[in-house]
Protein backbone atom coordinates (compact mmCIF):
# COMPACT_ATOMS: atom_id res chain seq x y z
CA UNK A 1 0.00 0.00 0.00
CA UNK A 2 2.41 2.59 -1.16
CA UNK A 3 0.60 4.76 -3.61
CA UNK A 4 -2.93 5.97 -3.69
CA UNK A 5 -4.84 4.58 -6.58
CA UNK A 6 -7.34 7.19 -7.57
CA UNK A 7 -9.27 8.66 -10.44
CA UNK A 8 -9.87 5.33 -12.05
CA UNK A 9 -13.40 6.18 -13.05
CA UNK A 10 -14.76 8.10 -15.98
CA UNK A 11 -16.01 11.01 -13.98
CA UNK A 12 -13.86 11.44 -10.92
CA UNK A 13 -15.88 12.85 -8.10
CA UNK A 14 -14.36 15.85 -6.50
CA UNK A 15 -15.72 18.19 -3.87
CA UNK A 16 -13.98 21.46 -4.74
CA UNK A 17 -12.13 23.66 -2.31
CA UNK A 18 -14.90 26.26 -2.22
CA UNK A 19 -17.68 23.76 -1.77
CA UNK A 20 -19.49 22.65 1.34
CA UNK A 21 -21.69 19.57 1.37
CA UNK A 22 -24.07 18.89 4.22
CA UNK A 23 -25.72 15.51 4.15
CA UNK A 24 -25.04 12.04 2.90
CA UNK A 25 -22.68 11.09 0.09
CA UNK A 26 -22.70 7.54 -1.16
CA UNK A 27 -21.67 5.69 -4.28
CA UNK A 28 -19.29 3.31 -5.94
CA UNK A 29 -16.39 5.36 -7.12
CA UNK A 30 -13.45 7.29 -5.79
CA UNK A 31 -14.10 10.55 -4.04
CA UNK A 32 -11.67 13.43 -3.53
CA UNK A 33 -12.52 16.06 -0.99
CA UNK A 34 -10.81 19.42 -1.18
CA UNK A 35 -13.68 21.28 0.40
CA UNK A 36 -15.87 20.72 3.41
CA UNK A 37 -18.18 17.78 4.06
CA UNK A 38 -20.51 17.42 7.02
CA UNK A 39 -22.61 14.33 7.45
CA UNK A 40 -21.94 10.86 6.25
CA UNK A 41 -19.78 9.29 3.55
CA UNK A 42 -20.18 5.72 2.30
CA UNK A 43 -18.07 4.90 -0.72
CA UNK A 44 -17.07 1.69 -2.44
CA UNK A 45 -13.71 3.03 -3.51
CA UNK A 46 -11.05 5.39 -2.28
CA UNK A 47 -11.90 8.46 -0.26
CA UNK A 48 -9.11 11.00 -0.49
CA UNK A 49 -9.33 13.91 1.91
CA UNK A 50 -6.85 16.31 0.33
CA UNK A 51 -4.71 18.83 2.17
CA UNK A 52 -7.12 21.65 2.95
CA UNK A 53 -10.13 19.36 2.88
CA UNK A 54 -12.27 19.12 6.01
CA UNK A 55 -14.54 16.21 6.77
CA UNK A 56 -16.83 16.23 9.78
CA UNK A 57 -18.46 12.93 9.10
CA UNK A 58 -18.33 9.24 9.60
CA UNK A 59 -16.47 7.77 6.68
CA UNK A 60 -16.85 4.24 5.38
CA UNK A 61 -14.84 3.25 2.33
CA UNK A 62 -12.62 0.62 0.81
CA UNK A 63 -9.59 2.81 1.27
CA UNK A 64 -9.22 6.13 3.02
CA UNK A 65 -6.32 8.56 2.57
CA UNK A 66 -6.27 11.59 4.84
CA UNK A 67 -4.06 14.56 4.02
CA UNK A 68 -6.55 17.05 5.40
CA UNK A 69 -8.72 17.04 8.49
CA UNK A 70 -11.20 14.37 9.53
CA UNK A 71 -13.38 14.56 12.61
CA UNK A 72 -15.43 11.40 12.85
CA UNK A 73 -15.17 7.66 12.79
CA UNK A 74 -13.32 6.19 9.85
CA UNK A 75 -13.82 2.63 8.69
CA UNK A 76 -11.76 1.31 5.80
CA UNK A 77 -12.23 -2.24 4.54
CA UNK A 78 -8.82 -2.30 2.89
CA UNK A 79 -6.43 0.34 4.11
CA UNK A 80 -6.27 3.61 5.96
CA UNK A 81 -3.47 6.10 5.50
CA UNK A 82 -2.94 9.33 7.40
CA UNK A 83 -0.42 11.41 5.49
CA UNK A 84 2.00 13.84 7.11
CA UNK A 85 -0.39 16.78 6.77
CA UNK A 86 -3.36 14.74 7.98
CA UNK A 87 -5.21 15.29 11.22
CA UNK A 88 -7.78 12.86 12.48
CA UNK A 89 -9.97 12.86 15.56
CA UNK A 90 -12.12 9.80 15.91
CA UNK A 91 -12.21 6.06 15.97
CA UNK A 92 -10.28 4.30 13.24
CA UNK A 93 -10.96 0.83 11.99
CA UNK A 94 -8.99 -0.81 9.19
CA UNK A 95 -7.13 -4.03 8.43
CA UNK A 96 -3.98 -2.10 7.66
CA UNK A 97 -3.09 1.34 8.90
CA UNK A 98 -0.31 3.72 8.09
CA UNK A 99 0.28 6.94 9.96
CA UNK A 100 3.03 8.97 8.35
CA UNK A 101 5.43 10.99 10.47
CA UNK A 102 3.99 14.42 11.14
CA UNK A 103 0.39 13.26 11.09
CA UNK A 104 -1.77 14.08 14.08
CA UNK A 105 -4.22 11.64 15.43
CA UNK A 106 -6.34 11.27 18.50
CA UNK A 107 -8.84 8.53 19.16
CA UNK A 108 -9.19 4.80 19.38
CA UNK A 109 -7.62 2.37 16.96
CA UNK A 110 -9.02 -0.91 15.76
CA UNK A 111 -6.47 -2.38 13.42
CA UNK A 112 -6.04 -5.75 11.82
CA UNK A 113 -8.97 -7.60 13.22
CA UNK A 114 -10.33 -8.67 9.90
CA UNK A 115 -9.43 -11.68 7.75
CA UNK A 116 -6.17 -10.11 6.64
CA UNK A 117 -4.68 -10.53 10.11
CA UNK A 118 -1.40 -12.00 8.94
CA UNK A 119 -0.44 -8.92 6.98
CA UNK A 120 -1.87 -6.43 9.39
CA UNK A 121 -0.35 -7.54 12.65
CA UNK A 122 3.35 -7.21 11.93
CA UNK A 123 2.73 -3.63 10.93
CA UNK A 124 1.03 -2.82 14.15
CA UNK A 125 3.85 -4.57 15.92
CA UNK A 126 6.55 -2.43 14.35
CA UNK A 127 4.56 0.68 15.01
CA UNK A 128 4.21 0.15 18.70
CA UNK A 129 7.95 -0.15 18.89
CA UNK A 130 8.35 3.54 18.20
CA UNK A 131 5.35 4.97 19.95
CA UNK A 132 4.56 4.36 23.53
CA UNK A 133 1.28 6.21 23.30
CA UNK A 134 -0.10 3.96 20.64
CA UNK A 135 1.06 0.91 22.50
CA UNK A 136 -1.53 1.40 25.15
CA UNK A 137 -4.17 1.49 22.52
CA UNK A 138 -3.35 -1.85 20.99
CA UNK A 139 -4.43 -3.91 23.95
CA UNK A 140 -7.18 -5.50 21.97
CA UNK A 141 -4.78 -6.92 19.42
CA UNK A 142 -5.17 -10.66 19.24
CA UNK A 143 -2.64 -13.50 18.95
CA UNK A 144 1.10 -12.99 18.90
CA UNK A 145 2.80 -12.89 15.54
CA UNK A 146 5.40 -15.48 14.65
CA UNK A 147 8.71 -13.90 15.59
CA UNK A 148 10.46 -14.51 12.29
CA UNK A 149 7.62 -12.91 10.43
CA UNK A 150 7.51 -9.89 12.67
CA UNK A 151 11.24 -9.46 12.51
CA UNK A 152 11.31 -9.69 8.76
CA UNK A 153 8.70 -7.02 8.55
CA UNK A 154 10.49 -4.87 11.06
CA UNK A 155 13.84 -5.13 9.30
CA UNK A 156 12.37 -3.96 6.07
CA UNK A 157 13.32 -0.31 5.60
CA UNK A 158 10.22 1.69 6.19
CA UNK A 159 9.20 5.19 6.94
CA UNK A 160 5.64 4.50 7.81
CA UNK A 161 6.22 3.36 11.36
CA UNK A 162 6.47 6.66 13.12
CA UNK A 163 3.57 8.32 14.81
CA UNK A 164 4.01 11.76 16.13
CA UNK A 165 1.34 12.57 18.55
CA UNK A 166 0.53 15.74 20.31
CA UNK A 167 -0.05 15.58 23.98
Amino acid sequence: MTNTKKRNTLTPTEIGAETKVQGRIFGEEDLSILGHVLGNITILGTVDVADGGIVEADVEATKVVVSGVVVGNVTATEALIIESTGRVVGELSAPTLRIVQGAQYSGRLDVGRMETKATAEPKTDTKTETTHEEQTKSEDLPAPVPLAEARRDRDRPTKRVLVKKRA
Partner: protein
Amino acid sequence: MATKTTIGTSITIDGTITSKDDIVVHGKMQGKLTTSRDVKIAKEGTLEADVDAKTVQIVGALRGGIQASGKAVIEPDGKMIGDIKAPRILIADGARFTGHIDMG
Protein backbone atom coordinates in the same frame (compact mmCIF):
# COMPACT_ATOMS: atom_id res chain seq x y z
CA MET B 1 -9.92 30.98 -7.73
CA ALA B 2 -11.99 28.82 -9.91
CA THR B 3 -12.11 25.37 -8.53
CA LYS B 4 -14.50 22.75 -9.65
CA THR B 5 -16.79 20.24 -8.03
CA THR B 6 -17.76 17.11 -9.89
CA ILE B 7 -20.30 14.55 -8.77
CA GLY B 8 -19.57 11.26 -10.51
CA THR B 9 -22.15 8.99 -12.14
CA SER B 10 -22.42 6.50 -9.31
CA ILE B 11 -22.50 9.10 -6.57
CA THR B 12 -25.62 10.22 -4.74
CA ILE B 13 -25.69 13.26 -2.50
CA ASP B 14 -28.56 13.74 -0.17
CA GLY B 15 -28.46 17.16 1.42
CA THR B 16 -27.22 20.65 0.78
CA ILE B 17 -24.35 21.87 -1.36
CA THR B 18 -23.14 25.42 -0.82
CA SER B 19 -20.35 26.49 -3.07
CA LYS B 20 -18.30 29.08 -4.91
CA ASP B 21 -17.17 26.50 -7.45
CA ASP B 22 -18.42 25.43 -10.83
CA ILE B 23 -20.45 22.29 -10.26
CA VAL B 24 -20.98 19.43 -12.68
CA VAL B 25 -23.40 16.71 -11.70
CA HIS B 26 -23.13 13.36 -13.47
CA GLY B 27 -24.77 11.51 -10.61
CA LYS B 28 -27.78 12.07 -8.41
CA MET B 29 -28.57 14.72 -5.93
CA GLN B 30 -31.44 15.59 -3.69
CA GLY B 31 -31.79 18.71 -1.63
CA LYS B 32 -30.50 22.17 -2.37
CA LEU B 33 -27.65 23.29 -4.58
CA THR B 34 -26.31 26.81 -4.24
CA THR B 35 -23.27 28.24 -5.94
CA SER B 36 -22.09 31.66 -7.03
CA ARG B 37 -20.84 30.12 -10.26
CA ASP B 38 -22.17 27.74 -12.90
CA VAL B 39 -24.05 24.48 -12.58
CA LYS B 40 -24.20 21.83 -15.26
CA ILE B 41 -26.43 18.81 -14.97
CA ALA B 42 -24.73 16.37 -17.31
CA LYS B 43 -26.46 13.79 -19.47
CA GLU B 44 -26.70 11.16 -16.74
CA GLY B 45 -27.26 13.64 -13.97
CA THR B 46 -30.55 13.62 -12.06
CA LEU B 47 -31.39 16.33 -9.59
CA GLU B 48 -34.30 16.68 -7.29
CA ALA B 49 -33.22 19.97 -5.91
CA ASP B 50 -33.63 23.70 -5.93
CA VAL B 51 -30.74 25.19 -7.83
CA ASP B 52 -29.45 28.68 -7.19
CA ALA B 53 -26.53 29.65 -9.40
CA LYS B 54 -25.16 32.08 -11.95
CA THR B 55 -25.91 29.94 -14.97
CA VAL B 56 -27.65 26.59 -15.02
CA GLN B 57 -27.29 24.20 -17.92
CA ILE B 58 -29.44 21.08 -18.07
CA VAL B 59 -28.48 18.17 -20.27
CA GLY B 60 -29.90 15.58 -17.87
CA ALA B 61 -32.94 15.91 -15.67
CA LEU B 62 -34.05 18.35 -12.99
CA ARG B 63 -37.08 18.34 -10.78
CA GLY B 64 -37.08 21.49 -8.75
CA GLY B 65 -36.72 25.22 -9.14
CA ILE B 66 -34.00 27.23 -10.77
CA GLN B 67 -32.97 30.66 -9.68
CA ALA B 68 -30.22 31.92 -11.95
CA SER B 69 -28.63 35.35 -11.84
CA GLY B 70 -27.39 34.88 -15.41
CA LYS B 71 -28.90 32.29 -17.66
CA ALA B 72 -30.82 29.04 -17.60
CA VAL B 73 -30.40 26.62 -20.49
CA ILE B 74 -32.26 23.39 -21.13
CA GLU B 75 -30.37 21.48 -23.82
CA PRO B 76 -32.11 19.31 -26.45
CA ASP B 77 -32.01 16.16 -24.30
CA GLY B 78 -32.69 17.99 -21.06
CA LYS B 79 -35.81 17.50 -18.96
CA MET B 80 -37.11 19.78 -16.32
CA ILE B 81 -40.13 19.98 -14.07
CA GLY B 82 -40.22 23.13 -11.99
CA ASP B 83 -40.08 26.89 -12.15
CA ILE B 84 -37.32 28.98 -13.64
CA LYS B 85 -36.45 32.47 -12.53
CA ALA B 86 -33.68 33.93 -14.65
CA PRO B 87 -33.10 37.03 -16.79
CA ARG B 88 -32.12 34.92 -19.81
CA ILE B 89 -33.65 31.57 -20.62
CA LEU B 90 -33.04 29.13 -23.44
CA ILE B 91 -35.11 26.03 -23.97
CA ALA B 92 -33.68 24.16 -26.91
CA ASP B 93 -35.67 22.34 -29.56
CA GLY B 94 -36.32 18.85 -28.19
CA ALA B 95 -36.06 19.78 -24.54
CA ARG B 96 -38.88 18.97 -22.17
CA PHE B 97 -40.11 21.50 -19.68
CA THR B 98 -43.06 21.81 -17.33
CA GLY B 99 -43.33 24.82 -15.08
CA HIS B 100 -43.41 28.57 -14.82
CA ILE B 101 -40.96 31.04 -16.20
CA ASP B 102 -40.16 34.36 -14.62
CA MET B 103 -37.75 36.60 -16.48
CA GLY B 104 -38.46 39.43 -14.06
